[in-house]
């Protein structure tokens, strides 16, 4: 087993919901991340899947130290990202980049493409003007845009084209890891396919490692080698893609998979429609967070939170009844 590129350990992020309130006695915290741990290996794509409020986007931002973590650690190779100085952090930032979901707000509307893609080079003072120009040009062409784009402004491009610009910008500093936070969710299906193919090509060509975050299971399945399923700030299951889809063990993962609409008519599906809503993230229950909606729960689940335990090579689940589910498959 090669050494991981990224090691995340018991990462926690709590958002306090009260500001300067003089009269509020209760300080409730939204536990966006409630202790997640995982590794990412060089060259692989780890997918993170979950619904809104599960903490996946928060995880991305905390890992890059864009927002401060409440607890836990994130190691990039041998460095603990949270204990780096500002200068060291700036240096590490060259190796870890991020692509966002909304192609309309992730680039500065007042800058032309040349400046946008070249900004990372300018921030780190890399290369002469001519060298930067060449680098930007090569990136623009690599992502499938024409070189006349360089002088244009964001509003002149479609969503798919802007997303390519964002990808080009992420590649500027030759990063090792790219975190993709819902990069295709806002795109039409036909454009989505183009961008996903591009991401795959770039990974093969540059040896990139991806952390791919999405709520769309089909997309995540297509691009990931391993997948982690998150629910309310915790990882409930993590497994190689094929194993997750063939033998999901966590009840939430099972219902998630069964709920995904598939554009086929003549297939029999065992749809599990969950009852009830997601619990209030400010008042998480004591035991398993999925208890209120779980169709496999036992009394133990209400009071004791399950640990993420490996039950098959590379396949870990956080569920008290995982073994019995496994037995029935």
């Amino acid at each position, binding site marked *: 087993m090669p050494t991981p590129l990224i090691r995340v350990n018991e990462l926690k992020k709590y958002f306090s919901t009260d500001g300067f309130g003089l009269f509020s006695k209760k300080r409730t915290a939204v536990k966006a991340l409630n202790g997640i741990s995982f590794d990412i290996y060089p060259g692989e794509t780890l997918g993170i899947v979950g619904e809104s409020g599960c903490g996946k986007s928060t995880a991305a931002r905390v890992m890059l130290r864009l927002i401060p973590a409440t607890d836990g650690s994130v190691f990039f190779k041998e460095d603990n990202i949270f204990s780096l100085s500002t200068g060291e*952090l700036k240096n590490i930032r060259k190796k870890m980049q*991020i692509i966002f979901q*909304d192609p309309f707000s992730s680039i500065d509307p007042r800058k032309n493409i040349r400046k946008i893609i070249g900004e990372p080079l300018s921030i780190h003072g890399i290369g002469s003007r001519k060298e930067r120009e060449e680098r930007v040009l090569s990136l623009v062409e690599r992502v499938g845009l024409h070189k006349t784009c360089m002088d244009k402004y964001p509003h002149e491009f479609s969503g798919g084209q802007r997303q390519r610009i964002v990808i080009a910008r992420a590649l500027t500093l030759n990063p090792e890891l790219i975190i993709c936070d819902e990069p295709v969710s806002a795109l039409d299906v036909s454009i989505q396919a183009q961008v996903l193919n591009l991401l795959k090509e770039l990974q093969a060509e540059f040896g990139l490692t991806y952390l791919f975050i999405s709520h769309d299971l089909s997309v995540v399945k297509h691009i990931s080698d391993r997948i982690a399923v998150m629910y309310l700030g915790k990882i409930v299951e993590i497994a190689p893609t094929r194993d997750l889809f063939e033998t999901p063990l966590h009840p939430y993962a099972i219902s998630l998979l069964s709920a995904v609409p598939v554009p086929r008519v003549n297939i029999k599906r065992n749809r599990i429609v969950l009852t009830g809503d997601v619990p209030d993230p400010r008042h998480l229950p004591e035991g398993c967070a999925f208890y209120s909606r779980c169709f496999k729960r036992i009394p133990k689940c209400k009071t004791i939170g399950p640990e993420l335990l490996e039950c098959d090579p590379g396949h870990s689940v956080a569920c008290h009844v995982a073994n019995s589910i496994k037995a029935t498959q």
Partner: protein
Amino acid sequence: MSVRPKHRFWISLGHNKLALFGFSILFCLVLISLSAPFIARFNPGELHMLKTLQAPDADFLMGTDEFGRDIFSRVIYGTRTSLQTSLLVVLIAGGIGTFLGLCSGYFSGVTDFIIMRIMDGLMAFPALLLALSIMAAFGASQTNLILALAIIYIPSFTRLTRNTTLGIRELEFIEASKAAGAGSLRIMIDHVFPNCLSPLIINATVILGYTILSEAALSFLGFGSPSQISWGTILSDGRDYVFNAPWISIYPGLAISFFVLGTNLAGDGLRDILDPRMQ
């Protein structure tokens, strides 16, 4: 052929008649102030003791005051002072206010708290009283007038910039810059500030109008600097002669109205042009 945001601005301006009118007024006033020596027939301080308090006629297009000075020439020369004053006020207030607003909005927390409380303090005073106190304490000169007025209008710019910054700060391209290693100062100057420009420019045109009125009010109350010729001082001079020589106050009053009309129309037009297109 890519249309840069700046070019689109001029094209849209062409479509908006009112804004065009507003800008034309301002442009004319600037021209007048620049070519004052050529337009004015007389020296503004020149006395014509035989023709005091005369109604407008062929020689004295806007009449004369109690010292026989040509009102028309005085208004023309006054354009310079008034425009200069209001421009300086807006630049100083805008510069300081924008900087404070950027810091306040971007850093939040204690910085925001302190800056906003100072602004609250400034805004708690009735504007003119504050200016009066400053003038009274430090003397009535044109410089002090400009500084006093600038202080009054700083909070307007600070609040505006702060609120705009709060919105921009949450946009993803700011996070992307951070992720690329950019520091706070760089982000503020390079990304946040340019995106604040639209509302700032609009606010500036509005404040230009307010400044003229405040300056006129201060002069009218006798706190203008006596050696300067501005629309406000001319208006003030005519205070005692409102019934028998109203032209002394009417014409500078009209000039002020024109200017405010121009800035308001230009400001409205700018808002229409800049905001929706930027979406």
